[in-house]
């Protein structure tokens, strides 16, 4: 990474985001209802990128924050009749708070122990939710809102935009240097003054915040939440797949990964739904074997100029 170079990656991402905004405004509901799912995927990919992509801790339980956001919005909207935007704010806030509490404990584990702890967390949370009748029978809350596709769309669009800018500047800042050092050699990092505890918790909390916000928008877009799908392990794997395919830790990788995972799965869903996880699984295996640094890594190696500007 070269901090002196102009931010072509950032400008490129801005152009893509501008296209996405224009597409929703000009092409109508049919297109925006497809693109909104793509943006939710991207928001989730960027959120897990703060944890697994940057810090390097594999989080199999990221769906937890998504579920927290979904229940926050569903509860506020269905019981208190609140504005869904308030629900998104609450989802983000609760995601952040839960990440702080959980992170203080499970970030003490490293490697595979951390990964196992994240899986256990989701199983526990699922069963806790089922014990609370306030969260609906079988953890199901359904609400009725007037159809507002553009409001949903531009909320998630704004979240993704914030994530892109934040990822970009974190990577270039002092924190980014510290985070990359930790990802590589936690002990050596602390022996030059980096505090692994603080930086890991920062990354985890950013992941929780944006995971919660994206989960809230997801509940908004499908007008409800159900415990089974909300805690579905597949979602965690999808998020991991997106950043592995796109390029872990980078600013552009999560968006690339979201496109690669979402577009084919959209078409498969309407034809052979069962083939979707199979296809993504195969893709991840191929990437892990031949392109561990994802599409971004491939592009960087293919061209000297891309190597300098892709972040």
């Amino acid at each position: 990474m070269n901090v002196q170079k102009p931010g072509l990656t950032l400008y490129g991402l801005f152009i893509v985001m501008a296209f996405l905004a224009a597409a929703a405004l000009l092409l109508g509901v049919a297109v925006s209802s497809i693109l909104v799912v793509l943006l939710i995927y991207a928001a989730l990919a960027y959120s897990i990128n703060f944890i697994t992509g940057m810090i390097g801790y594999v989080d199999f339980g990221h769906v937890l924050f998504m579920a927290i956001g979904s229940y926050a919005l569903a509860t506020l909207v269905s019981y208190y009749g609140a504005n869904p935007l308030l629900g998104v704010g609450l989802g983000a806030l609760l995601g952040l708070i839960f990440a702080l509490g959980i992170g203080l404990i499970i970030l003490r584990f490293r490697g595979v122990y951390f990964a196992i702890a994240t899986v256990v967390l989701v199983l526990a949370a699922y069963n806790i939710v089922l014990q609370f009748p306030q969260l609906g029978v079988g953890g199901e809350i359904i609400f009725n809102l007037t159809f507002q596709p553009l409001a949903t769309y531009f909320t998630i669009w704004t979240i993704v935009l914030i994530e892109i800018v934040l990822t970009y500047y974190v990577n270039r800042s002092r924190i980014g240097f510290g985070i990359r050092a930790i990802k590589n050699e936690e002990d050596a990092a602390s022996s030059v003054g980096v505090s692994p505890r603080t930086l890991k918790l920062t990354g985890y909390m950013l992941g929780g915040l944006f995971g919660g916000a994206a989960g809230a928008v997801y509940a908004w877009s499908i007008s409800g939440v159900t415990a089974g799908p909300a805690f579905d392990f597949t979602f965690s794997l999808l998020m991991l797949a997106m950043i592995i395919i796109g390029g872990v830790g980078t600013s552009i990788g999560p968006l690339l990964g979201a496109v690669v995972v979402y577009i084919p799965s959209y078409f498969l869903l309407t034809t052979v739904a069962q083939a979707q996880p199979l296809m993504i699984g195969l893709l991840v295996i191929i990437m892990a074997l031949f392109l561990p640094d994802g599409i971004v890594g491939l592009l960087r190696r293919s061209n000297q100029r891309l190597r300098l500007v892709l972040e």
Partner: protein
Amino acid sequence: MPFLKAHNVSKNFGGVQALKDVTLELPESVVLGLIGPNGSGKSTLLNIIAGLEKPTSGIVRLDNRRIDSLRANRVVGYGLAKTHQIPKPFSNMTARENVAVAVLYGRRNIPSPRLALEEADRVLSMVRMGSRKDAPANSLTVQEKKRLELARAIGTGASILLLDEVFAGLSPEELKDSIQLFKKLHNELRFSVLVVEHVMRAVLSLSQKVMVLEEGRVIATGSPDEIVHDEKVIQAYLGSKSAAA
């Protein structure tokens, strides 16, 4: 004026006593060599001072502050930096980025990555690695990785360096080169150094004072010249029969 002092430090690992009541003083700008046979507790002592391990009993002070309960990354803020016996570069970064991390997070309060990278370049040329600054850290040779460890320690702005076998595993030519470089750096920067070393030639020619550990105890302290003639030291290294001969 930094003055490092370890007082009656002991360390137990389960039933094994790695250090027994070790007391050590490191005045400003002094190079203190720490030698001893394998398993004598040298690295453990260095780790305790650097905050990587907690002593079972005893205290470590820097000037008048106790530092033995601080975590490693906080110790760096007080001006101590340790190199690793087995180099641990951040291998996904270039040499200059490695040093920039130390500049950004050391005690020097340089929060701008751009300025930190410039400073990293300066430190790398000081350790004669200027031509390798853009090399990925995992492509460096063993000697270069050791130099990078040194550059990172200097990059933190430390006034006390804890060097764990930076001269081991080098060819005679590289060793000569490294000793010469170390002398030059010490003359310019005047840091204090606690150097753990197996390579006798290096310790004896660099240190003003040498301390010898055996089985966790200090068995001798003195000038390099006194140490090589000390009965107990000769016994510890060669056994009593050779001492008698």
